């Protein structure tokens, strides 16, 4: 209870401290927002690109379509045999019901086009995933061997274009990670410099808090809270801007890219991802502030 009361007091002091230098705080929050906006844009591009690729099914290197009369136990036995190969990481048996469900999910609001399509019209299949180490030659050889199996109707492998697509996604991932690191560094630096200024501006307050017996944590906490608030506000501002831009552009994108988006529409961050982004902003603010107070607030 005592700790909670102290936190409440320190939080109020942190907010009051921010109000003492509104211009510096606004500039810090906006700069952080711009940085987080860059990262958010890259992340949004990445998750949508990944979503589209998944929708196309090109993330499955090899799909085995079985003939209509195949018995389920035979299909499952073949699945197990394929999964037993050392190069194969996973082989998943897909019943026609599952295939139809996936198709409906993928079409989203356009699922009505499947009205009248019966489960029996879809083939039973096996999705085969291989490890990163396996090469195209292995896939071609495996496909050839599988085509000779009696219950197999057709074997589909992803082509070179799909490989290039995966490489593109990987490159986008690398860009997002690099941007993430850059943004983290920039946000920490922004928070560090503004908190350093705040410590300097409020050095007499720090001195008074030391004098009356404030512990290291008590004296430093308002500044750390300031950093956290800067981070959260920066992230919130960036996400708001991004949401506004996304919802303005999404209908046009969906219309323009309808051919590519057959398996699902573009999406914005989920609530879980938004909370994660805000926490990320807060964490960066806290790290910057902690470094600043550790250096400039003595006890």
């Amino acid at each position, binding site marked *: 209870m*005592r700790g909670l009361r102290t936190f409440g007091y320190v939080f109020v002091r942190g907010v009051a401290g921010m109000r003492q230098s509104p211009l510096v705080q606004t500039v810090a929050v906006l700069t952080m927002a711009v940085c987080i906006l860059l990262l958010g844009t890259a992340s949004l591009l990445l998750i949508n690109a990944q979503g589209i690729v998944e929708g196309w099914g090109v993330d499955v290197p090899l799909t085995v379509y079985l003939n209509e009369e195949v018995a389920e136990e035979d299909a499952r036995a073949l699945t197990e045999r394929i999964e037993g190969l050392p190069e194969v990481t996973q082989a998943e048996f897909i019943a026609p019901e599952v295939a139809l469900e996936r198709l409906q999910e993928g079409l989203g609001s356009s699922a009505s086009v499947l009205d009248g399509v019966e489960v029996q019209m879809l083939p039973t299949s096996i999705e085969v995933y291989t490890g990163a180490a396996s090469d195209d030659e292995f896939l071609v050889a495996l496909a050839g061997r599988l085509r000779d199996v009696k219950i197999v109707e057709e074997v589909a492998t992803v082509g070179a274009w799909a490989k290039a697509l995966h490489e593109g996604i990987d490159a986008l991932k690398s860009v997002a990670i690099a941007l993430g690191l850059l943004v983290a560094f920039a946000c920490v630096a922004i928070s560090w410099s503004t908190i350093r200024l705040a410590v300097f501006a409020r050095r007499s307050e720090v001195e008074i808090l030391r004098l009356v017996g404030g512990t*290291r944590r008590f004296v430093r906490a308002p500044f750390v809270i300031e950093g956290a608030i800067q981070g959260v506000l920066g992230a919130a501002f960036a996400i708001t801007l991004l949401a506004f831009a996304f919802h303005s552009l999404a209908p046009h994108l969906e219309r323009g890219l309808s051919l590519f988006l057959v398996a699902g529409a573009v999406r914005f961050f989920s609530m879980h991802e938004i909370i994660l982004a805000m926490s990320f902003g807060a964490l960066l603010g806290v790290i910057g502030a902690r470094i600043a107070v550790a250096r400039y607030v003595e006890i």
Partner: protein
Amino acid sequence: MSILELIDVRKTFIAHTRAQVALDGVSVSIERGEFALLMGPSGAGKSTMLKLILALERPDEGSIKVADRDVHRLTADSVPFLRRNLGAVFQDFRLLPEATPEENVGLPLRVVGVGNSEVRARAREVLLRMHLDPDLKRPVKTLSGGEQQRVALARALVTDPPVLLADEPTGNLDPDLSRDILDHLVEIQSRGTTVLLATHDPIVRSYVPVTRILHLDNGHLISDEVTPRLRAISDQHDVAESSAEVA
């Protein structure tokens, strides 16, 4: 029994690549309940001595003990707990200028996590003792110098510390306000608080019934003069301790 003890304390500061001796081999012992006056001209080392006791500075040599605990052997995490037992007032008040008197006085209680209603009640009680209006909602920076110093005194006393350190508390005040502050300090000491008052003003000596007068000059302790009042206080403490032992 000593509550404050300095043993062969030396402190130098480096100014423009030259070492300036602020205190040079100073040894002092102040008993519980005393009203000690620390006198000397500006730059004699009075403020340095108080800062060393408050652990705001570290001595180069020697040791400083508060209630038998060596201040500079304390860990950084323990220092705040020492300061909670030492009230301090300064010539420049050191108040939060935008905060109200009640907020300033309540600060030492906030530090230890005391609840709102208790902070308010105790702050009001001490403000009343200092003849200040506890309902005053103005920032302290709008108060007169005398009022600000009384707020600072109230803040120093709100936790009932056993020791009060006062560094030129009347330095910025006119004679009437100075006497008012000194009266408060005498009253505080009469309640059992040990007071160490640093001043360069010789009038303070004639006005305040002190138990000890320490003269500092150029970092050296040139005299440690005990007044007859100390004997009386020591006798009172002896009687109190004997009674406690008998009980």
